[in-house]
């Protein structure tokens, strides 16, 4: 059960400090926010685009009061956000939700597409801690593999396995094949996963098979972000408040829904 402090949920409106283009569809947006700059990897914010929308976004990085999110344009809010200019105002609430544990030693991070955002943040935080890290990232094609150059620098003594569906970079294939391959050879203390839910469901099933503890970052529709409205519910959990990170034990309790169904904007259960 994650903490919730009133001040986190009071919206702060602040100008965009910096915008970086990651690829054709994805940008990284940086702003100043004290509360969010203390966020832990896995936590998210609610970002308001005035008179457009308010959407949940994982925190990608935070340091010295500066906070970054990485946004893939997939619809009206994300497109509108990605076309904003430096200096324009956005509203921020958060950080919300729980975070990845960082106790384990031999870690496997597996992320697909924009799902690697919180894993990248996690990587940055744990990479100096004398841990053995394997980072598996995957995307449809090379230029959708995010943060590659930073990841290479961060992981110079660690393992990176990149996968593209079209083979334009790293292994050709889907990311879970890389996972199975490596688990056949090596044992890990923990797997951290974020990405499309069907991929994460596969990761879960594989992790169960190999009996490796998993922490997966889930996504659901979010409105309140603080455990009140019910939009993000999965089983007995609220992704915003009890998650977004769920461990193997919790995932087992929601295995009928995890990877299969979610609520739409009407609160109706629909297939994923």
């Amino acid at each position, binding site marked *: 059960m994650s903490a919730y402090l009133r001040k986190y949920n009071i919206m702060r*409106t602040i100008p965009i400090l910096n915008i970086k283009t990651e690829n054709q569809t994805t940008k990284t947006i940086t702003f100043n926010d004290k509360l969010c700059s203390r966020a832990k990897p896995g936590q998210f914010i609610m970002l308001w685009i*005035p008179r457009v929308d308010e959407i949940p976004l994982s925190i990608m990085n935070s340091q010295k009061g500066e906070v970054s999110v990485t946004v893939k344009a997939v619809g009206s809010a994300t497109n509108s956000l990605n076309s904003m200019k430096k200096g324009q*105002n956005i509203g921020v609430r958060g950080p919300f939700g729980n975070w990845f544990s960082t106790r384990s030693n031999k870690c496997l991070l597996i992320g697909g597409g924009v799902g690697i955002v919180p894993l990248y943040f996690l990587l940055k935080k744990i990479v100096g801690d004398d841990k053995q890290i394997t980072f598996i990232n995957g995307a449809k094609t090379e230029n959708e593999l995010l943060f590659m150059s930073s990841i290479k620098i961060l992981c110079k003594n660690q393992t990176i396995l990149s996968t593209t569906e079209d083979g334009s970079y790293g292994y050709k294939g889907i990311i879970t094949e890389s996972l199975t391959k490596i688990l056949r050879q090596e044992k890990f203390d923990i797997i951290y996963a974020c990405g499309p839910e069907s991929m994460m469901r596969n990761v879960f099933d594989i992790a169960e098979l190999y009996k490796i503890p998993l922490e997966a970052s889930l996504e659901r529709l979010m*409105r309140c972000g603080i455990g009140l*409205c*019910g939009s993000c519910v999965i089983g*007995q959990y609220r992704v915003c408040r009890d998650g977004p990170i769920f461990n193997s034990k919790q995932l087992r309790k929601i295995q009928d829904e995890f990877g299969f169904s979610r609520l739409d904007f009407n609160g*109706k259960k629909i297939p994923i």
Partner: protein
Amino acid sequence: MKSNSLETHIAGLHLNSPTMLASGIMSYSVDFFQRIAKEGVGGIVTKSIGLESRKGFENPTIVQINNGFINAMGLPNPGIASYANEIKKAKNVLNIPLIVSVYGFSIEEYETVAKKAINYGADAVELNVSCPHVKDTGLEIGQNPEKLFRAIKKVKNNVKKPVIVKLSPNVTNITEFATIAVEAGADALTATNTIHAMAIDIESTKPILSNIFGGFSGPPIKPIILRCVYELFKTVTVPIIGSGGITNWRDAIEFMLAGASAIQIGTAIALQNTKVFNDINKGIKSYLKKKRFKNVEQIVGLSQKI
């Protein structure tokens, strides 16, 4: 049946504790109902359900101001047909009263949805005639004496289970509407829904909620809603369920002393998390013991004796 000092009766419904889940709070999923049942919730009111499904408003649908919230969800709900499964499932797995909250864009819709909800197994319906932000339902009926009367009457004539009416505080005189509701047959009153409010962001100079206006809930509205309950207790004889800003057992007692037979918890689930039901029930129990009351029903309306 074991005697339990927290037992309460509302229009024939038997509640093990007077703390209920308010409508619209985490109320899509029966799994979540089970979670709070373990915390001792006495009864559950579902999200307000209409005839058709509704997407609700764009985000932001909620904004926090101090320790209160203004929300304009826009009644997102799957519609009664889809919700049937949840009602049935709830009745299978829960052994506490399930009250389906009902709204409609016409008197007929209220009737149809209420009838269906009861047929699917609901123990009662709560008519939401007080939603402050969706046009043509809620307030448009809750603020119109004649429509209010006809809507309630129609539902009453067509369902055999208790009909609770959730009143709006956004009226000049709430007792007038309460009287009408009771005359039309309401078995109990929920007092109240949220208060019409808004917030503006001074940096962007824009209203924050996509719908501009929303309903204010949480601790800031408590003294206002408490006054409503006090006035209603003087006016009507049907049980009153308090709803507005109740966050801890002291608030709960205050509402019961004012005249509430039970209380609903909404915003406090965000502020205190799901343990709030248990915390409140424990607090009420200690209070009863300390003050030597035999049961919670003894304190209902007690502050009216002065």
